[in-house]
């Protein structure tokens, strides 16, 4: 059969794109290099290209921000061919689609014989994804990019980067430790070899830790396991990107022709149907559901079906056939969601003081209009400082980035998170802008992400008559935002001890959190950063003037 080759091509494409996806995901960990750099230290690969080529991210962020950020123009490479050909992205490119495809092809008790055919029939619940899409796009139109929670690319990057890969890294290290622990020479040699081969690509430089990692991994596992019941349940029923591409293929010219005269009703075309789009004789073929996997034409022994341009219309349902009332309900849900989410105190009136956003992050409203929660910023952060939020940014901001100085501080010369952000929620900045070196742009003021405060009851020179000053040592601004004044503290024996007690100058503090990170009071540090004074906000301020200090 001439169309047999198509499924082989499709499989090749899936493998290549999946490999590329994983390669770029691995390369989105910061590795550094031996090449000395004066200016911005950057990643060598375009690691966010899958996210930038994602039409849903582009459409939704265009709705919410009325613009298209940087590389999101790449999404047209997917969207425009979809107009002509249909959902080729789902079947040929999408990494989550390929994973679902693989898990859907595993043997399963729930998909044997008749049940397997039945499970691949078109079901009206497949329309659910269109209503989900309608709700998400409506909320985007009103300024919130909730779409990121369900966008398949963002979801896959987030789940793998924050949930799965850190776990694998831990497991890998445990095996290495066990091998090294044996004191058996060949095993230790094997461990050395494995370590050498994997240390620059597979193994993380340092074990990454992420809040929510377990939850993210579990959600991802659930999506994959659903395939054992219904092949590509996620893609058929839930995926908003699939829905968008299905809607976009309304006028596409590639379609399935059913030739009744050659068909023997063997139903083999339905055995491995990915989309649940009814390639079988009888019901019409559903264009918006088809992933163009070409399994049906590959299986057909009689040339009873084949793909061709401009197929006869009578056998095709070209539209998703949505029910107007449900569509309206979807839009209404998305529309109503935002006012409710934003009329909680957490959004403006009483924001969580520890909601420290990465440098370059836009004002909270604009930020939530752009952040798709892909987790790229968190993966690239060399200090593991950026973590997914739970409810610190409200339900609306779930899994968006927050800086947790106790885990890691923000290196003042580092701009990696702003390099990888695909949507401009963290606007691309340069090192000079961040440091406030006005020569190369910026207004001469450094980008502040918060301000440090002392908890004098826990601070060694303040409360316990001991020298310390580690916070001052680490303070990266010049002149230092932490200054020391000599004082005399009395210890328990009544002796006077000279100490230097630290203070914060809010005019100079940039909120990087190096002091909090380095504070030797390990469990609950004696200096901590809150978001007050962050450059991105007009209202989250407290000192009257914050001029750039004299140099």
């Amino acid at each position, binding site marked *: 059969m001439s169309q047999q080759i198509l499924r082989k091509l499709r499989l090749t494409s899936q493998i290549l794109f999946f490999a590329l996806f994983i390669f770029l995901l691995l390369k989105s960990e910061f590795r*550094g290099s*031996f*090449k000395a*750099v004066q200016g911005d230290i950057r990643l060598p690969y375009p690691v966010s290209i899958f996210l930038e080529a994602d039409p849903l991210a582009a459409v939704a962020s265009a709705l919410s921000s009325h613009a298209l950020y940087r590389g999101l123009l790449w999404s047209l490479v997917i969207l425009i061919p979809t107009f002509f050909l249909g959902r080729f992205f789902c079947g040929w490119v999408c990494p989550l689609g390929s994973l679902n495809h693989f898990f859907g092809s595993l043997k399963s008790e729930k998909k044997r014989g008749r049940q397997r055919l039945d499970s691949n029939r078109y079901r009206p619940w497949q329309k659910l994804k269109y209503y989900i899409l309608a709700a998400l796009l409506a909320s985007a139109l009103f300024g919130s990019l909730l779409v990121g929670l369900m966008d398949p690319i963002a979801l896959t990057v987030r789940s793998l980067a924050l949930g799965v890969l850190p776990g694998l890294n831990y497991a890998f*290290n445990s095996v290495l430790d066990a091998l090294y622990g044996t004191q058996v020479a060949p095993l230790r040699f094997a461990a050395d070899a494995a370590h050498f081969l994997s240390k620059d690509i597979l193994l993380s430089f340092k074990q990454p830790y992420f809040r929510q990692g377990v939850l993210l991994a579990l959600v991802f596992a659930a999506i994959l396991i659903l395939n054992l019941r219904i092949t590509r349940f996620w893609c058929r029923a839930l995926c908003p990107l699939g829905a968008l591409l299905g809607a976009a293929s309304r006028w596409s010219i590639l379609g399935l022709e059913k030739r009744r005269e050659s068909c023997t009703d063997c139903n083999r075309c339905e055995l491995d149907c990915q989309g649940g789009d009814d390639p079988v004789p009888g019901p019409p073929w559903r264009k918006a559901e088809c992933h163009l996997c070409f399994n049906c034409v590959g299986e057909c022994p009689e040339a009873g079906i084949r793909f061709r341009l401009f197929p006869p219309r009578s056998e095709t349902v070209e539209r998703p056939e949505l029910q107007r009332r449900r569509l309206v309900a979807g839009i209404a849900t998305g529309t109503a969601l935002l006012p409710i989410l934003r009329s909680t105190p957490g959004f403006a009136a009483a924001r969580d003081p520890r909601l420290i956003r990465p440098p370059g992050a836009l004002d909270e409203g604009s930020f939530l209009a752009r952040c798709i929660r892909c987790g790229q910023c968190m993966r690239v952060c060399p200090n593991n400082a950026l973590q997914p939020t739970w409810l610190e940014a409200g339900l609306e901001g779930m899994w968006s980035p927050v800086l947790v100085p106790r885990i890691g501080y923000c290196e003042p010369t580092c701009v990696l998170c702003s390099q990888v952000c695909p949507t401009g929620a963290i606007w691309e900045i340069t090192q000079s802008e961040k440091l406030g070196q006005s020569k190369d742009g910026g207004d001469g003021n450094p980008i502040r992400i918060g301000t440090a405060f002392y908890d004098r009851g826990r601070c060694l020179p303040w409360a316990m008559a001991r020298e310390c*000053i580690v916070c001052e040592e680490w303070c990266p601004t010049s002149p230092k935002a932490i200054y020391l004044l000599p004082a005399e503290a009395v210890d328990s024996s009544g002796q006077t001890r000279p100490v*230097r007690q630290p203070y914060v100058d809010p005019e100079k503090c940039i909120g990087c959190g190096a002091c909090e990170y*380095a504070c*030797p009071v390990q469990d609950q540090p004696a200096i901590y950063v809150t978001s007050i004074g962050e450059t991105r906000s007009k209202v989250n301020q407290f000192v009257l003037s914050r001029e750039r200090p004299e140099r």
Partner: protein
Amino acid sequence: MTKDVNLQNRREVVSRLLGLGALGAATAGLGIWLRERSRKPERVAAGSPHKSFTVPPDPSLPEVVVARAEDPGALVRKVIDPLGGIRRFISPGETVVVKPNIAWDRTPEQAANTNPQIVAEVVRLCREAGAAKVIVTDVSTNEARRVYQRSGIAEAARSAGAEVILPGERGFREVNLGGDILTTWPVFEPFLTPDRVINIPIAKHHSLTGATLGMKNWYGILGGQRHRLHQRIHETLADLAQFMRPTLTIIDAYRVLIRNGPVGGSLGDVELHKTIIAGTDPVALDAYAAKAFWDLDSDRLRYLRIAEQRHLGSTDLQKVRTKVIEDGQG
């Protein structure tokens, strides 16, 4: 048991009971064995691989050499020659660890890390003297991957023929340093096993000790929560100096971070002195540099006094054999 048990069944019964008995005995044995093994978990017993990397003193040679020059590389050779030449310190086939300060995400101009050209020149000298392996490493303060790249040291040292080792999570060993304050602490393994160690700190301001020089550079061999050590910094520094007795110390004062140390960040904090202070007496070298750039007498640097009491060197700069080479000389 019923009457109709036949022979075959009886055999089955016996063998089943024997099998279960064996399983029970094995389980009990395993349980008792595991109970015998039960110990309260304790910290890993630390070894104490105390080792001096020094060379024998030579009364005909100076203990401290100070020189000035435009080129940092040439400057290295200018101070090493009067000290007896590199062959006095490095013999062919030896493994040498060079310990610059590679601590902060700063460029060479900002003078928070050792000058990469100086590091490279020291590596080259060691190679010329026939060292089998020259390792350049430091346990960074800021994120190591960024620091090694930004400081320019990784590139310079590697192209000069050194093996550059980034401190990751692996490779630390619990060691008893045998100090008053500093007892058991994780030490980065490359510092434990070499034949020779060359310390190349950069001279910087520090709020707690006035200046951070050669002895303070040994913080960079430690892992763990080393921030706690600041509470007793003077005793800790003396402990470290007692543990790490370097072959040679070369204080980089080409650019000196005169204030806002040890991180700096502004070129306004940097003074250009184009100087190196090198020698075999780590105490005298620190005392000299503190006096030269911050006008700090050794009374103000308590750790030097403690080190002197422990016979690690001398703070009496009048008595230390010092050779100062002015610009254009040598």
